[in-house]
């Protein structure tokens, strides 16, 4: 049974038995592009697919949809199709009490990697994040679709990150100023991220308290560095922020740098377990402090 068939079968059962009110998965649109979809009835499940273009992190839809309603109402329950990286986001969201474990039925897919849509011209190739990825099975799931794929003999190192780390401070300043200059402050990176779920973003306040509304270098840099900082110990490395950027800014570099730093300083990786990251907790015995 293909992944698509297995997902459809599970979705049909969940909806027929009214275990969930909605299945969040992927469909293919009229132009042939894979995109998120929301299935509410068993007769719609044929829209669901699984393919190598299922890039979106569907867990970003969970915090908004799983808000508890009026007292006495049962809390909403949905099913969501997740890749291993996406499943790590569910751990972080659970640790941060965004919703209860019983509110989400996780359909986890064993992942062989997602294709890079920007590579269509020449040789279609896997996204860079997938070429680095060693976690091919979801970290939590109520159903697992597919067998664990074998890892390739050699995983790509993070060359872009290594290149940045090897630069001098002045070169890095130049690099980031050029990147942020192109930014149009569309906030797609923030909106695509499951962990960016503040009701009102610090950097978009009506009183300009932390950052003004200007789409200028100072403001854009403050937004990106501030957002990366707020994701330290929380970002699970799906790199969707980078994929959605219309200006092709390699914004994931900031998150990957901080993920490595948090791992080095605190031995912590976000999303492996449903626990809070180190930046919101007290020092553990033996933890380094200046």
């Amino acid at each position, binding site marked *: 049974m293909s992944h698509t068939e297995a997902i459809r079968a599970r979705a049909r059962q969940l909806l027929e038995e009214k275990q969930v009110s909605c299945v969040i998965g992927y469909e293919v649109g009229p132009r042939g592009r894979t995109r998120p979809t929301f299935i509410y009835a068993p007769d719609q499940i044929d829209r669901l697919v699984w393919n190598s273009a299922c890039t979106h992190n569907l867990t970003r839809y969970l915090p908004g949809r799983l808000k508890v309603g009026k007292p006495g109402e049962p809390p909403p329950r949905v099913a969501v199709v997740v890749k291993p990286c996406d499943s790590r986001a569910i751990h972080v969201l659970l640790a941060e009490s965004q919703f209860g474990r019983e509110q989400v039925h996780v359909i986890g897919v064993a992942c062989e990697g997602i294709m890079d849509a920007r590579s269509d011209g020449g040789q279609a190739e896997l996204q860079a994040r997938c070429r680095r990825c060693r976690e091919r099975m979801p970290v939590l799931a109520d159903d697992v679709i597919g067998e664990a794929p074998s890892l390739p003999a050699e995983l790509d190192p993070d060359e872009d990150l290594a290149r*940045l*780390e090897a630069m001098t*401070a*002045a*070169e*890095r*300043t*130049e*690099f*980031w*100023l*050029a*990147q942020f*200059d*192109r930014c149009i402050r569309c906030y797609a990176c923030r909106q695509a991220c499951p962990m960016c779920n503040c009701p009102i973003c*610090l950097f978009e306040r009506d009183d300009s308290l*932390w*950052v003004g509304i*200007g*789409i*200028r*270098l*100072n403001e854009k*840099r*403050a937004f990106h*560095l*501030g957002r*990366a*900082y707020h994701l*330290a110990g929380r970002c699970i490395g799906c790199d969707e922020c980078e994929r959605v950027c219309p200006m092709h800014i390699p914004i994931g570099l*900031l998150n990957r*740098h*901080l993920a490595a*730093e*948090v791992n080095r*300083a*605190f031995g912590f990786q976000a999303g492996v377990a449903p626990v809070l990251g*180190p*930046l*919101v*907790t*007290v*020092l553990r015995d033996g*933890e380094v*402090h*200046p």
Partner: protein
Amino acid sequence: MSIEPGPEAFEPRLLGFLCTWCSYTGADLAGTARLMVPSNLRAVRVPCSGRVPPELILKAFDNGADGVLVLGCHIGECHYDNGNHRAAKRVPTLQSLLAFAGLEPERLRLDWVSASEGERFARIVSEFTEAVRRLGPCHWRWAAMQPEESHLESAGGRR
């Protein structure tokens, strides 16, 4: 021909976040004891070092600070029990991010000063002032927008 002042004449503009209970009181003590403390530091009093958010430190650099100093109570002595634990973890993480973005991490310093440590306060501020002086002026802040600035003229426009 006018002579530009050399780097040794550079007076760093430093912003300090001092927690009410320990480090700000320690700074007061340095003052009443007439200890020599460089006047480069402007102190901002906060309830706790754990209250200092990264956005505020970024804002300080964006507004022209050459260095930012965060002083709190020693670990285990925080007035709020463990507020300084947060600072202990957050400031080094922010330093790492700023370094990655091109700002020298030595421009941001976290340290602990208790209410009775006036001399320690004076020493830390002197050390920090000299360290930032050696680094020179901070070029982090992008020039304020000129009235005619167009988006297409900004920094990367001609790359």
